[in-house]
């Protein structure tokens, strides 16, 4: 009888935890906001008076329907300008059932296509226009408790260059090239590099950082991140070792000994404008050297005392 009761108790417990787990998972899933956008960025070089269109896909990957508001916002080096003034009328949506700042319902698991049209008039100033297509979720109505409601915004940058010739002045300057002059052999190498866009149109820095040492050399590709007109931006390398500290251009643990040379080579996009800069540093195991020296002094002193 006792055994039967125990079995019953265990069975009920298992069923209870199973139901609780299912309920918990449902609850957790129901609360998520999840959106996807494609393409994640649009780059357009266009002549005044010409027209071009691009299809965007926005998907609700969350487990609830959401009310979305499509917005065209200004983009600068600090990000999206939330309270953008009225922007260009030549950037519009072709969908007949959608327009900017008008909410629409996107059920869960559904993808909505939007068609963006760019049609700069002939008199449009020839320069770069940085905008973003942003979709914002409308928070759910508040419940009867103290709470923070969340609103999710997902944006796709639109980088437009209006030019009648396509001949654009691209220029850059390395404003920071921070390489230590002297490091301990056991310390990681940390390099910080900033690049400023001094031209009239945005570019991506395409190139690598080369480390040349006494017995060999290594090369690390730079991520081709966008640098807007007037923007100064830190560059990063595609290095797994860089992952724990992405605030540094290159962080490379290892053992260094002797003279090393760090060289930065990059082009503006995949063009012919090439920039290069290099610096030299030296590595010695000075921390271990000091410890050994102090140890030797202690041993010598102890030896002298023993002799006395």
């Amino acid at each position, binding site marked *: 009888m006792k055994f039967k009761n125990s079995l019953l108790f265990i069975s009920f417990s298992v069923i209870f935890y199973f139901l609780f787990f299912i309920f918990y998972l449902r609850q957790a899933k129901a609360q998520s906001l999840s959106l996807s956008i*494609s393409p994640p*960025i649009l780059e*357009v070089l266009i002549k005044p008076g010409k027209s071009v269109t691009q299809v965007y896909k926005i998907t609700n990957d969350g487990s609830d329907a959401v009310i979305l508001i499509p917005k065209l916002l200004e983009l600068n080096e600090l990000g999206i300008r939330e*309270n953008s003034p009225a922007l260009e009328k030549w950037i519009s949506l072709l969908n007949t059932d959608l327009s900017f700042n008008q909410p629409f319902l996107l059920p869960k698991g559904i993808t909505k*296509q939007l*068609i963006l049209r760019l049609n700069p008039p002939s008199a449009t100033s020839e320069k770069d226009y940085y905008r973003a297509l942003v979709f914002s979720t409308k928070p759910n109505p508040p419940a009867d408790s103290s709470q*923070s409601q969340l609103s999710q915004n997902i944006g796709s940058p639109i980088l437009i260059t209006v030019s009648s010739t396509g001949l654009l002045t691209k220029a850059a300057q390395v404003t920071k090239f921070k390489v230590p002059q002297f490091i301990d052999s056991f310390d990681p190498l940390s390099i910080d590099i900033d690049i400023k866009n001094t031209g009239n149109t945005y570019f991506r820095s395409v190139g690598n950082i080369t480390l040349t040492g006494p017995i060999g050399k290594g090369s690390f590709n730079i991520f081709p991140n966008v640098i807007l007109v007037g923007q100064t931006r830190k560059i990063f390398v595609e290095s797994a070792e860089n992952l724990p500290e992405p605030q540094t251009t290159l962080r490379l643990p290892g053992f260094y000994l002797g003279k090393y040379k760090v060289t930065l080579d990059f082009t503006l996009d995949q063009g012919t404008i090439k920039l290069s800069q290099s610096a030299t540093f030296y590595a010695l195991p000075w921390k271990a050297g000091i410890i050994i020296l102090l140890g030797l002094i202690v041993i010598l002193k102890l030896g002298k005392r023993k002799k006395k």
Partner: protein
Amino acid sequence: MGAGTASAQDMNSQNFKIEGGNLNMTSGNKASQNYKLSDVVGQTTAGLFASKGYIIQSGFLNGAAGAVFSFSVTPSVVDFGTLSPKIPVEKTIRITISNGNMPGYTVRVSENQPLATTAGAEIPDTVCDEGKNPCTYSNASEWSKNSTFGFGFRMAGRTVPVDFAKINFYRPFPATRRGEQSILIMQSGAKKVVDQATMTLKVNISKTQPVGQYKNVLSFTAMGGI
């Protein structure tokens, strides 16, 4: 092959009208024993700019053609329950980013206003523990005393600001009501990453805090490819 020419024509449906657009209809890499071709139908090379009048790319050299940028925030509402004086309440929000083939992303956050009731009572945004360095929305500082009141957050994750590395370091949210811009809470220059971060919200009220339901809206903004 069939992909060598770009086609432009007017298309109509009930929902939209396209006038001779240049659309990414297909894209990808194709290969056989004799050739390897990367193409994006409808895209043009720089040399055609003069005749066509535009070049359109979905990212650097169409590196993002077909790529998807995803952003998740869980949960969608943070319920603080019943707030009691000098008993801090902490709740977490999980943020996930997946950026596909385009390098770089940013995630920013702001609040519309401090936590407030409809009658106008507010829980102030935290300035953290009293000391020489009060926290601001751009600089975290220690908040561990139960006698320090307010509303703030801290971040944990691989790509969050470094000032959150120390334990119990918090910041207040920038408020759009005060005209403050959203602040960066996640950033990476990498591509093909799936990054996660955890935001911990903290509320602590004083004995003099009026009774009521305090509410605000937190806005999370993610952008990829830049």
